[in-house]
């Protein structure tokens, strides 16, 4: 039962919002309370999984592989927990950041439906069901992106919608073909059958693996399929950008890790995929960070950074050892926290100045020390300065890469790190250190104290979380190593799901 609760909580919250249509007080309250309950449930799930191993729920009492199965292993539970945490933080931030006219058209319900889709994707053990959760997530994100209906949002949304619809079609076709080859859509069952099917029809299975890579790669924004992301992510209100940047691409990465560790986890298939994944990872990192360096829009720069960070995650997957996957999981959590903190700061900067343009900003170091620190800490964490979380995350992946002998991708990763630091320094110099250009001198807007509190609490808490992740890197790393061991030991997953029927 605990496995389904993280999905049910945002669903029920969204339903309260739908039934109380037009009553934004109830919707706001439900959104925050529901998200808070979600955090508690997610933590309980994580502790349960940690203590008792992989949790499985046969929905409708139809045992696997016949019915839909929900599975929570450590990796899923970690992702669900960070989703719920981000969900709560952004829900609080959104109370101020989202205008009344967006609340009236059901923003809070959409937001909860988005969380339903994301959490469902993390928890499902069924490939077709994963497609359905993806679509729930995508449809809510489509609507959230276009809620304001201004020209910039619509233009961004066009690219976002078309690319994601295309990737859904490819995903669906690959599920269909895989079903044709193996006769099942249950992931644990697929794991068994794909490895035996690979003996006879290796090239077909490899093509399918590539189709899945393209489908998830589009959603994860890997090179060369990322162009929709920097075109659309900087257009909606900051709260929406933050939750998109924190979760949506990560669901694509999660799906990639899941299919490669569970379904296509045989040496013949993976050796073929590895070179492509490594190449994609390297190019994603480099192109993403170069794109970021060239930007002058605060959020647009950060959007390109999302792409660059995805490269690191794919690199961790492509190295494909327990150590590198442990690093990837750690990195996933780190990058969600650090990137969201930066986006939230950009939102506060916008509230104060009315612009995201770095050329028109400046002087925050002198007149708002606290805000500068809130930017500085996640920024250097992202660049990988010890002792913050980013250092340990990168260190783990790089060490794993050296052990596995993938020297040139490690070199690329380190090279990109330098540019990450450079682009962070760029924002730091432009928006914080230097004096504001005379042409744009204007008094800062004042934010009412009641609103300021709601904006600052999530920003500070996430900023603190990046510091704490650096300090408690040891225990957290043990957790992610345990999760990676579960991922690489597919037997555990398969017996947990199919154990009852074999």
């Amino acid at each position, binding site marked *: 039962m605990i496995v389904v609760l993280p999905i049910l909580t945002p669903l029920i919250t969204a339903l309260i919002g739908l039934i109380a249509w037009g009553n934004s007080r109830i919707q706001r309250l439900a959104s925050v309370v529901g998200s808070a309950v979600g955090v508690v449930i997610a933590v309980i799930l994580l502790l349960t999984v940690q203590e008792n191993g992989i949790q499985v729920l046969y929905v409708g009492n139809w045992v696997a592989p016949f019915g839909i199965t929900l599975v929570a292993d450590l990796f899923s539970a970690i992702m669900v927990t960070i989703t719920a945490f981000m969900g709560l933080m952004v829900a609080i931030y959104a109370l101020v950041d989202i205008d009344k006219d967006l609340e009236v058209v059901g923003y809070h319900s959409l937001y909860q439906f988005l969380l339903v889709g994301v959490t469902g994707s993390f928890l499902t053990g069924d490939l077709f069901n994963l497609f359905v959760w993806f679509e729930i997530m995508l449809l809510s994100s489509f609507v959230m992106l276009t809620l304001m209906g201004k020209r910039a949002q619509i233009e961004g949304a066009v690219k976002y919608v078309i690319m994601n619809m295309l990737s*859904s079609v490819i995903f669906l076709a690959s599920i269909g073909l895989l079903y044709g080859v193996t006769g099942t859509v249950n992931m644990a069952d697929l794991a068994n059958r794909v490895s035996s099917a690979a003996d006879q029809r290796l090239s077909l299975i490899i093509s399918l693996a590539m189709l899945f890579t393209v489908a998830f790669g589009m959603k994860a924004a890997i090179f060369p399929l990322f162009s929709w992301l920097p075109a659309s992510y900087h257009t909606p209100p900051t709260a929406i950008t933050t939750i998109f940047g924190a979760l949506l691409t990560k669901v694509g990465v999660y799906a990639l890790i899941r299919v490669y560790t569970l379904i296509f986890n045989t040496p013949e298939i993976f050796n073929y995929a590895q070179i492509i994944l490594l190449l994609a990872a390297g190019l994603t990192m480099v192109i993403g960070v170069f794109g970021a360096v060239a930007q002058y829009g605060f959020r647009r720069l950060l959007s390109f950074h999302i792409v660059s960070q995805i490269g690191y995650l794919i690199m961790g997957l492509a190295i494909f050892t327990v150590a590198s996957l442990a690093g990837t999981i750690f990195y996933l959590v780190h990058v969600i926290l650090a990137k969201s903190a930066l986006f939230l700061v950009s939102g506060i900067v916008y509230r104060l100045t009315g612009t995201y343009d770095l050329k028109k900003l400046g002087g925050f170091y002198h007149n708002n020390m606290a805000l500068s620190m809130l930017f500085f800490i996640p920024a250097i964490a992202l660049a990988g300065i010890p002792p913050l979380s980013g250092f340990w995350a990168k260190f783990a992946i790089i060490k794993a890469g050296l052990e596995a002998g993938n020297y040139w991708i490690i070199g690329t990763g380190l090279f990109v790190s330098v540019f990450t630091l450079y682009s962070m320094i760029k924002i730091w110099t432009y928006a914080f250190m230097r004096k504001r250009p005379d042409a744009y001198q204007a008094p800062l807007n004042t934010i009412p104290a009641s609103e300021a509190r709601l904006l600052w609490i999530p920003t500070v808490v996430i900023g603190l979380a990046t510091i704490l992740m650096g300090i408690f890197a040891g225990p957290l790393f043990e957790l992610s190593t345990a999760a990676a061991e579960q991922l690489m030991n597919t037997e555990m997953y398969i017996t947990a799901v199919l154990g009852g029927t074999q």
Partner: protein
Amino acid sequence: MNLLLAITVGFLYAAGIYMLLRRSFVKLILGLALLGHATNLLIFTIGGVERAAPPLIPYGEKVLSGDYANPLPQALVLTAIVIGLATSAFAIVLMRRAYVLVGTDDVDELVTTDK
């Protein structure tokens, strides 16, 4: 029958991809719709097309007897169709909105967010 369906699927994919490569927004959406239909038909075909009874348990009995068609591809296709309906409806509304705001149906004009 399988060959005919396979050719249809291939033709739909070809037409869909051709449409996707056009600059017109309307053709883009038609292309996506065609790709969606191609995929649905693909799943239907790949599940095995055969002559058999519908998988319904006759009144008063507990289990299926005799030859019956595989119900799973149909369930998958039905779900995919419903989801496809929702996404296409959204895409059409988006297209209309974009047309009103930008005044053209040429996707090459939608570049202000890339600058």
